[in-house]
């Protein structure tokens, strides 16, 4: 194998891993859109809020400490204890369920039957509100995220030595695959499997699909729209927590986590807004496509020899170009539902 082909194989594998991380973000959008027709602009901020809440609970931080101190002149910041990661994750899930209830109770309950654009605008407002509340609640400093299931069993990061050695023995060049990416892939597979089982084989899942298909028909057979929407927002909140953990482990938990939504948009355009497999396949295509394109264009041996110039930092725009190319041939996305409206 030529060096370039070996390097391209490494880039391909890393693209697949990156695609899984994009898909994790896109999943949250799909769940809500599928069940309620709402494009949830706040999904990225939900990932931020969930990750901040997790770190805050883990480290025993007092919520709204700065606000309390400013009003009452106190100097409290921490409770003085630390919470185990598993308990902290459970508590964070409860907070996300509470958030789902509040979103439904105070925002969307009043907007039932409104145009999709109104619902979309409401999620923009929700995003800004949640950003502010997250900062006020947990502070805006960058926080280190350590999720450990047991002593010494924390989220792994860094090169996977086994793959490095195996590929070195095969090709004379060790592939870099991040342990965190492998973990994210396993978690994503489990998550998607759980979501499929939940939606196909549980009463609540079937009710969710019924609402997604036709909410008026679902209402007529006694499905509570209110309950289903809270359920969907809760599941999306859980998916946001998983995405927040995976992305937060790389960069620390900080405001920029909310921007990961930008990575999900081309995935949604490509995979379709209503398909869970679409989010996964779309994520993989975008991840591999953008990484291979960047590799090709930044290489003097490839792009330099062909075009006489090289390019860097192509990933952000190329992901959208790739999605647009797909849209030309399949406007509904790869797995999206084809909507036919007859006049």
């Amino acid at each position, binding site marked *: 194998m030529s060096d370039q082909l070996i*390097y391209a194989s*490494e*880039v391909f594998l*890393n693209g697949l*891993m*990156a695609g899984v*991380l994009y898909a994790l973000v896109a999943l949250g959008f799909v769940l809500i859109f599928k069940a309620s027709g709402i494009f949830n602009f706040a999904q990225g901020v939900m990932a931020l809020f969930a990750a901040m809440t997790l770190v805050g609970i883990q480290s025993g931080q007092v919520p709204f400490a*700065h606000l309390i*101190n400013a009003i009452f*002149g106190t100097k409290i*910041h921490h409770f003085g204890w630390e919470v185990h990661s598993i308990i902290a994750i459970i508590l964070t899930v409860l907070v996300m369920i509470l958030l789902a209830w509040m979103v439904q109770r105070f925002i969307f309950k009043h907007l039932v039957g409104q145009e999709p654009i109104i619902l979309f605008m409401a999620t923009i407002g929700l995003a800004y509100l949640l*950003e*502010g509340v997250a*900062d006020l609640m947990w502070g*805006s*400093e*960058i*926080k*280190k*995220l*350590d999720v450990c299931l047991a002593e010494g069993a924390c989220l792994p*990061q*860094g*090169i996977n030595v086994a793959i490095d050695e195996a590929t070195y023995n095969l090709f004379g060049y060790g592939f*870099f695959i*991040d342990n965190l990416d492998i973990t994210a892939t396993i978690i994503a597979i489990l998550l998607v499997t759980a979501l499929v089982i939940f939606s196909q084989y549980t009463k609540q899942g079937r009710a969710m699909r019924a609402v997604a298909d036709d909410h008026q028909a679902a209402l007529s057979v006694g499905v509570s729209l209110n309950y289903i929407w809270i359920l969907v927002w809760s599941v999306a909140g859980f998916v946001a927590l998983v995405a927040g953990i995976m*992305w937060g482990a*790389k*960069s*620390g938990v*900080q*405001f*920029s*986590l*909310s*921007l*990961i939504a930008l*990575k999900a948009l081309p995935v949604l355009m490509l995979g379709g807004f209503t398909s869970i497999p679409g989010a996964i396949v779309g994520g993989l295509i975008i991840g591999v496509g*953008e*990484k291979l394109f*960047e*590799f090709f264009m*930044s290489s003097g041996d490839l792009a330099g020899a062909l075009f006489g110039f090289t390019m*860097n*930092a192509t*990933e*952000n725009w190329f992901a959208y170009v790739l999605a647009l190319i797909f849209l030309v041939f399949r406007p509904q996305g790869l797995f999206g539902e084809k909507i036919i409206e007859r006049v």
Partner: protein
Amino acid sequence: MKYKLGTYAVAAVMAASPVMADLVFPSLSYRTGPYAAGGIPFADGYADYFTLLNERDGGIGGVETRVLECETGYNTEKGVECYEATKGEGSLVYQPLSTGITYQLIPKTTADGIPMHTMGYGRTSAANGQVFSHTFNYPANYWNGASGAINYLMSQGDIAGKKIALVYHNSAYGKEPIRTLEELSEKHGFELMLVAVDHPGQEQKSQWLQIRRERPDNVIMYGWGVMNQVAIQEAANIRYPMENFIGIWWSGSENDVLPAGDAANGYKALTFHGVGSDFPVFDDIQKYVVDAGKAAGAGDQIGTVLYNRGLYAAMLAAEAAKTAQEIHSTAEITPAMMRDGMEALEITEAKMAELGLPGFGPSFSVSCENHGGPGLIGMTQWDASAGTWSLISDFAETDMEVIQPLIDADSASYASENNIEAGC
């Protein structure tokens, strides 16, 4: 009735007029948005120093100072709005704290006659005071930073034939050092490898795979925000030696290294000011500001890199105001007088010691020709176990033989584009 209405009108006008008794220092801060983690400590340091002057010294020259904070969210449009909203308050000097805002404000501040200080950021060629009459970027700029990094590497051994990568934020800011590094590469015979990272920099796998394949001897980073934290983590992931990884001063705060934990140990960053809180001025800040409940923030950022930078900026502004008061023999100075003070600013070791900041920054003086100062650069290194930065070199000179012609060329082009007649 008419008399009463007239009295009310006069009272209303008086109430609406700026309070001329205060020396107003606007702070275009960003406590919200993606870069808040960096903006908050800087803004706190800037505000706390002026609070200290008020509480301990009764202000500057007997006149109280007032920090006028306006939230920009690191957004250029909001920054310009802040400038327009605050310039009528008697604002003496602007610190835009953003290269984008700086570029927008250069013509505006010049037209309005208000000086602007862009310390370690902004338009590098503003160091030429003959063209940029109201913009100052002492004591160091981006090009000094690039040269400082290369000088440091040369002090560690021969760099001829070596490969040095620049990992940069794909923006006007990130691209600033490219020209300087290209010149230096030609001069010293090292190979320059350019690696761009798009905003915000949350995903950098391709870039670090490229670095792993091409194995540069050293990596220099011009990053900001989340790009820094991800880059340091990715460098650790590919086992790139942290000792060979150098960040510009905007990639060298606690925020940047803490998320990577122990893996960030040994990472280096350039600086133009001291680190830590082992300076007498911090005792005064604790006593007069924090303990008195007058701190701008929670008081937990004192001694961090960005808090110190904000405090240093405030100190330089206060010293320029004192110089202006001396030059014009009045305590109540105007923006025009402040500009004169900035242009005549002289920072000596004795003055730094007197201010409770001995050795915190280099000695330098500003002149009409040189608004950029001497461009002396130091190197810091992160100790992950102690959780501290240490200054590991002196503030050393940079290669002005390479930098000055670049400054002259860029400022000459600005002057011709804007019909400015250069001169002092």
